[in-house]
């Protein structure tokens, strides 16, 4: 049963990767077997929770032993403009006794009651986990019963960790919305310019950079799923006239089924980068007009786009000179790589590599066109290789998620978080300015020169060169005796040994970067398909 369900979720006609596969490959599904001892990334439960947790006025109850929730709660930066209930953590925290005596279902039921009575949530999402799936707790039945008894929606999400990857968990969450939520509320204010946005997480509140654009055009965001979503908004999402899918691999299946069930057309777009933001606005306008919105929406959209683009261009100008030619390594699946690639290239940065782990073939083609020479795409890179590449100075900055943060920092390479824990909003026109500003700040922090300069002693602590200039003093001391000359040199900082020494090391960490090695190295990356942190 579970197998069929998983198979159905992976057989996604709207998924670009899936479309490109042969019939045989398609049957195999897209869950790659994990390598024990060399795997990384979250499980299906992780994915399911991530996809639904930002629904702000719902309680998210995790049915299982402690670790699933206890080790992971309150760790994502979605913004809420209303309730903070979603940030509270609820788990049945099963003990050995609960499991042995089969108390799981009863405890879950009581847990739902406690939450319903004490917190009055708009809904309760109940997540199964490995252990409760293994012992066969019927969470569907418990949810149904509790829902009837306490008069609020209680939605089962069956994504136990062992069924697969985070991506599968995203899909399971989408399916749960379709099966239990969307279409259960009929709003009384349906309009011709209502839209739904799927896969927008409102990280660092960044959707609030975009929503005013829609407001200006008179387009109503009926529901943004899941970022800053209220349960009732999602329940009425089926009345929208168009859907935009933002993080395509996660919820595109949901978008397709909404088309099939309610005839809502969808497109895949992005709010990262100037051109993408503009194109997404245009697409929304076109879809709405095709379905009966006033014709002038298109012209008004063009006017807004023109105005905003010229404003953002002026705001980006100061950065062009500072960032032109800087080499970026993009190592993330969290945002649409090509859209960030395009955005950064537009201000003159050079992309030395980008991960395409979650990109569709179409995305890859776009990247190839954008990065004319040597499109260095990789599925993912082993930490050791990544470290080597950065330590060798092949990139000036890496943009990635927290998982690989310390690989970059240990390699003394500037790093910027563009994944779920980030604190800066990067969406829309203003978000692009923010991203470029943050890259500038990271790259040009003056501490890099100091942190990269070697210590002025060898491995045994013997002074090798007097690279540290000390101020001259009147009375002789052991220190000054040795560094007399450099103290003089320090008077002419531009040409001093210390300055040259620092400069040399700050500009280049390449100590043995022969081109042949690098070429071979790159080839190696191109083939690897290990998980992010997997291969050590």
């Amino acid at each position, binding site marked *: 049963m579970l197998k069929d369900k998983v198979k159905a979720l992976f057989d996604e006609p709207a998924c670009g990767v899936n479309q490109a596969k042969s019939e045989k490959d398609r049957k195999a599904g897209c869950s790659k*077997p*994990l*390598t*024990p*001892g*060399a*795997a*990384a*990334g*979250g*499980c299906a439960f*992780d994915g399911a929770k991530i996809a639904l947790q930002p629904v702000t006025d719902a309680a998210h*109850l995790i049915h299982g*032993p*402690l*670790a*699933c929730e*206890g*080790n*992971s*709660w309150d*760790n994502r930066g979605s913004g809420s403009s209303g309730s903070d209930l979603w*940030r*509270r*953590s*609820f*788990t*049945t*925290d*099963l*003990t*050995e006794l609960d*499991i042995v005596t089969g108390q799981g279902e009863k*405890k879950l039921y*009581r*847990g*739902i*009651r*406690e939450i319903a009575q004490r917190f009055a949530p708009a809904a309760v999402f109940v997540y199964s986990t*490995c*252990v409760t799936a*293994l*012992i066969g707790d019927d969470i569907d039945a418990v949810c149904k019963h509790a829902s009837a008894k306490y008069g609020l929606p209680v939605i089962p999400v069956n994504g136990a*960790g*062992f*069924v*697969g990857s985070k991506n599968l968990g995203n899909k399971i969450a989408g399916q749960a919305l379709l099966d239990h939520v969307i279409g259960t509320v009929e709003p009384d204010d349906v309009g011709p310019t209502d839209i739904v946005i799927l896969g927008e997480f409102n990280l660092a509140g960044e959707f609030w950079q975009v929503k005013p654009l829609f407001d200006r055009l008179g387009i109503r965001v009926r529901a943004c799923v899941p970022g800053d979503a209220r349960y009732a908004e999602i329940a009425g999402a089926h009345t929208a006239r168009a859907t935009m899918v933002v993080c395509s691999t996660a919820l595109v299946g949901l978008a397709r089924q909404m088309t099939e069930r309610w005839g809502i057309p969808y497109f895949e777009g992005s709010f990262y980068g100037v051109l993408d933001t503009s194109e997404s606005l245009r697409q929304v306008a076109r879809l709405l007009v095709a379905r009966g919105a006033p014709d002038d929406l298109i012209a008004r959209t063009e006017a807004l786009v023109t105005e905003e683009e010229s404003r953002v261009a002026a705001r980006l100008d100061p950065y062009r000179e500072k960032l032109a030619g800087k080499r970026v390594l993009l190592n993330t699946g969290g945002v649409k790589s090509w859209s960030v690639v395009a955005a950064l290239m537009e201000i003159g940065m050079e992309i030395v590599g980008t991960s395409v782990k979650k990109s569709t073939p179409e995305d890859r083609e776009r990247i190839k066109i954008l990065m004319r020479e040597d499109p260095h795409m990789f599925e993912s890179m082993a*930490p*050791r290789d990544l*470290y*080597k590449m950065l*330590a060798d100075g092949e990139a000036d900055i890496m943009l990635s998620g927290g*998982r690989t*943060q*310390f*690989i970059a920092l*240990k390699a*003394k390479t500037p790093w910027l978080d563009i994944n779920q*824990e980030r604190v800066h909003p990067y969406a829309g026109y203003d978000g692009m300015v923010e991203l470029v500003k943050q890259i500038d700040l990271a790259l040009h922090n003056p501490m890099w020169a100091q942190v990269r300069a070697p210590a002025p002693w060898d491995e045994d602590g013997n002074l090798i060169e007097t690279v540290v200039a000390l101020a001259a003093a009147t009375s002789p001391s052991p220190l000054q005796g040795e560094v007399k000359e450099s103290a003089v040199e320090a008077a002419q900082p531009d040409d001093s040994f210390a300055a040259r020494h620092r400069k040399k090391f700050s500009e280049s960490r390449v100590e043995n970067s022969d081109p042949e090695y690098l070429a071979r190295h790159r080839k190696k990356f191109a083939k690897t398909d290990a998980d992010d*942190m997997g291969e050590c």
Partner: protein
Amino acid sequence: MAAIVTTQKAAAVNPLKSSQPLGAALAFLGVAEAMPLFHGSQGCTSFALVLFVRHFKEAIPLQTTAMDEVATILGGADHLEEALLNLKNRTKPKLIGVCTTALVETRGEDFLGDITLIKRKREAELAGTDVLLVHTPDFEGAIEEGYSKAVLALIEGLVQPVEPRRVDPGKVAILPGWHLTVADLDLLRDTVESFGLEPVIVPDISGSLDGTVPGRWIPTTYGGTPVEAIRALGDAAHCIAIGEHVRRPAEMLHAIAGVPCTVLETLGSLEAADRFITLLSRLSGRPVPSKLRRARSRLQDAMLDGHFHFGGKRVAIAAEPDHLYALAAFFTGMGAEVVTAVTTTGHSAILDKVPAAEVAVGDLDDFETRAGEAGCDLLVTHSHGRQASERLGVPLLRVGFPIFDRLGSQHRRTILYDGVRDQIIEAANMFQAQQRIHTPDSLDPFRDRGETHDGHSQASHH
């Protein structure tokens, strides 16, 4: 002394606990060239890994057997074997610490049998790597229990008996509790060395999680206690365990190699530090070095300066048992009152001694509710206490694990003369920052008839 109560809720709200395997992994991370391995689905590892990374701000070696649904039904021995071989090939660790999780423990396999078989079958491939097993299902215990089991496994699995007993008179085995920071371990080492003794700290995260820039990629832990040093612990003159939860490993060392042991409940107060220093002086036969005498005097001075700010203050603490005891003893020792004490599990013998009327086994929701009802001036727990702090309007002193929204948690000293002094200063400054300015209203004898707790934050009742 303290009454231990368990709160009756079906669903935990805002858990206080981190999981048991995470605690075990923390202990293995204190061994040089080690690699902890979770036997479970990959999410178990991913969650723990991310939490470690957020706390330590370091790349953390931690791997998974990546159980899928087939292995969950048919058994995980093959996954375990493959994981061990892959880890051996790719990272060449000296030690792999296998920590079980709730998934495989619920399934219930003979892990020890599996590992024994794998070791025999793959003897050549696994040569030079010790493989240890700890049973750490997530459905029981928390960090303390997991850590304790892993330290026990290190002693039981590695220490070689010395027959007949030979003693290296300068060697002292130190088994620190998990709640000691990197800076605490450095201080411990310096202190022991100042008596001319050679400390062997097991495990020692000050060598592996101290935040350095090694200059090359190291896939395992880059420092910590060498496996060989643990193996050779049998000739230690004495063993000092710090915290009730490392008593069993200390007793195991005694059982295996006859090393006499002393368990100290805490090092977090002047008198506790005195006990430790006295012990070192006796073991070494040396007088207490002047540096330590000076440090003691500085602590005395900090206590004199600081006690004004602690006197009568109402403090709420949520922490694992030994840590709770240490913190509660520290605050009450300075004149504060522990009005709320919440802990993770109720089995530790130390809980009876916690200087509070009641210790509740519960979550951070119980902590918040109780602290709010009692009225308090300071919350003391890990970073997840921030929600309670926001809602109650009471400042939060971040201690223990995880601390993900402040830097430098590992470089704070909390023990011995210097650490206690640091902690007094930190808490006193938080109290001072909260000092209320008296107003005509606040002092009006007709407004406050003495029913409310003087000094506690009025904001908590807003």
